[in-house]
C-alpha cells in the first residue's frame, strides 16, 4: 500500500463530507426513513395483533427495516453526489494524481460511512421516541447498528460502480430502483413465515432477509442468523468493491 493511500482517501472523504453539508445531502436519508417509521409503525401496527406474528413490539420490528432504508439511502445519495465529480471530470484529474484507484474508492466510501453513522444514530433515537422497545444488551444493540453500517458500505460501492458507468446524475434511478426492489421483496411488514406465495419464496433468497432478521433478533436480545447476516453483507461488500473498481478501471482506460 502506498504511503499516500490514507492521505488521499481522507482528503477525498473530507471533500465529499463538506459537499454533503453544503448540499444538505443527508436530509433525504434522514427524512425518508423517519416518514416510513411513522407511517408503518402508526398505520400497520394492527397486523402485529395476531398471535402468529411472534415479535413483541411492532415499532421495533419496523425500525430495523427503517435502519436498512437509512443505510441504503445514505449510500445511494452519497453516490449520486459523486456523479457531479464525474460530470465535471474532476475525478479524472484526481486519477492522474493518485497512485491507484483504491484510495479514491475508499475515500468515497469513508464519506458515506461517516454520514451513515450520523444517520443510524439519529434513526435509533427516532425509534426510541416512537416507542421502539430495544431490550437487547448494549453490545447486541451495537451489532444491529454495525449491520446497518456495513450495509451502507456495500450500497455505497454499488452506487459508485453505477455512477462510474453512467457518469451523470441520471444514474440515480438505476442505483435506487434495484435497491428498492430488493428492500421491498424482503420481510418488511411482517415476519417471513407470514408472507404469502411468491414473496415468501423471493424473500428466502433475498440477501437483505438475513440482515433484517439478525437485526430484529439482536434488537430484542435473541441473536439469530448472525453468521449468515455478516457473511452476506461481507460478500456484498467484496462483490460491489470489484464492481466499483472495474468501473474505475474502465473510466481510466477511456480518453
Amino acid at each position, binding site marked *: 500500500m502506498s504511503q499516500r493511500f490514507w492521505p488521499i482517501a481522507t482528503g477525498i472523504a473530507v471533500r465529499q463530507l463538506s459537499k454533503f453539508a453544503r448540499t444538505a445531502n443527508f436530509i433525504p436519508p434522514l427524512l425518508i426513513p423517519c416518514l416510513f417509521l411513522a407511517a408503518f409503525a*402508526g*398505520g400497520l401496527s394492527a*397486523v402485529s395483533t395476531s398471535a*402468529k406474528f411472534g415479535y413483541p413490539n411492532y415499532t421495533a420490528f419496523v425500525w430495523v427495516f427503517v435502519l436498512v432504508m437509512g443505510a441504503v439511502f445514505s449510500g445511494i445519495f452519497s453516490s449520486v453526489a459523486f456523479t457531479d465529480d464525474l460530470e465535471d471530470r474532476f475525478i479524472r484529474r484526481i486519477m492522474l494524481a493518485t497512485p491507484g484507484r483504491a484510495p479514491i474508492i475508499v475515500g468515497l466510501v469513508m464519506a458515506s460511512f461517516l454520514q451513515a453513522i450520523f444517520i443510524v444514530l439519529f434513526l435509533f433515537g427516532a425509534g426510541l421516541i416512537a416507542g421502539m422497545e430495544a431490550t437487547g444488551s448494549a453490545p447486541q444493540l451495537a451489532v444491529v447498528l454495525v449491520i446497518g453500517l456495513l450495509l451502507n458500505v456495500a450500497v455505497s460501492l454499488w452506487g459508485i460502480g453505477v455512477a462510474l458507468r453512467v457518469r451523470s446524475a441520471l444514474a440515480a434511478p438505476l442505483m435506487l430502483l434495484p435497491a428498492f*426492489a430488493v428492500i421491498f421483496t424482503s420481510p418488511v411488514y411482517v415476519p417471513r413465515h407470514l408472507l*404469502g406465495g411468491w414473496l*415468501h419464496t423471493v424473500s428466502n433468497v433475498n440477501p437483505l432477509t438475513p440482515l433484517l432478521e439478525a437485526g430484529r433478533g439482536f434488537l430484542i436480545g435473541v441473536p439469530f442468523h448472525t453468521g449468515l447476516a455478516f457473511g452476506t453483507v461481507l460478500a456484498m461488500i467484496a462483490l460491489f468493491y470489484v464492481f466499483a473498481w472495474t468501473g474505475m478501471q474502465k473510466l481510466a482506460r477511456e480518453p
Partner: protein
Amino acid sequence: VSELQGQSLGEQFGVLAQRSIVRSFRQPVVIMPVLAFPLFFLAVNAAGLKSATDIPNFPTDNYLTFALATAFIQVGMSSVSISGGGLAEDIQSGFLKRLSLTKMKGTALVLGHLAGTGVMAVISSILYIAVALIFGASIKAGVAGGVVCVLLALLVALAFGSIGIMAALRTGSTQAVQVVFPLLFVLLFFSSQSIPRNLIDQAWFRHVATVNPMSYLVEAPRSLIIKGWDAQALGKGVLIAVAILALTMSFAGGAMRQGFKER
C-alpha cells in the same frame, strides 16, 4: 404553433391534446414507471400484507382486492410529473412563449396538457384491474363498478395533473414540479391505504388518516371493489377530486394570465 392560429377552442384543444398524448407515449422512461410501479407495489403488498386480512372485521379475505384501489391513486400521482413536467419543459424551451403569440386560449392549453395523463390513467387502471382479476381479486360492484373505478382513476389523474400544471405555471421549472410527487406520496402513506380507518391501531394515525383527503380518494374506488355501491364513499371521493381540480385550475388560470401578460 401555426396550426393553432385562428382555430376554435375545440380545435386548439385537439391539437394540444394530440401533442400531449403522443409526447407521453413516446417516452418509455415516463410510461414504464407509471405502469410498473403500482403493479410492483400491488404485488408486494398483496403478498406482504396478506396476514392483515386476519385482523378481526377486516372487510375482505383477499388483500389484493383491498390494495387494488391504491394503484388507481398511484397512477394519478404520476400524472403530476407527466402533465406538469411536460408543461414546465414547454416553458423552459420557449414553446409556451411562442404559443402566447397565437390566439390560443388558456383553457385549451391546460386541458390539452391533461389529455396525455388522462389517456395514461385510463389505460393503466384497466391494466391494473385486469391483472388483479387474473390473480384472484374481485369487484363487488361488478362490471359497472369496474368502469366507475376507471373513471375515478381518470378524475384523480386530472386533479393531480392539474396540481402539476399549477406548479409548472407558477415556477416554470421541471425540478419544482418533481417536488410535488414525494409530497403526494407522503400523503398517501399517511392515509387509510393499507388498513381501513376503523381498524388502525394507533389513535394519532387514525386521526391523521381521517383528516387526510387522500384517504377518501382511496376509499371511493375501494368501496366499489369491496362493498358494492356506497354513495357516501363515492360522493366524498368525487367531491375531493373535483375540489382539487377546481382550485388548482383557478390558480393555474391566474398564473397563466399573468405569465401571458409578461410575455
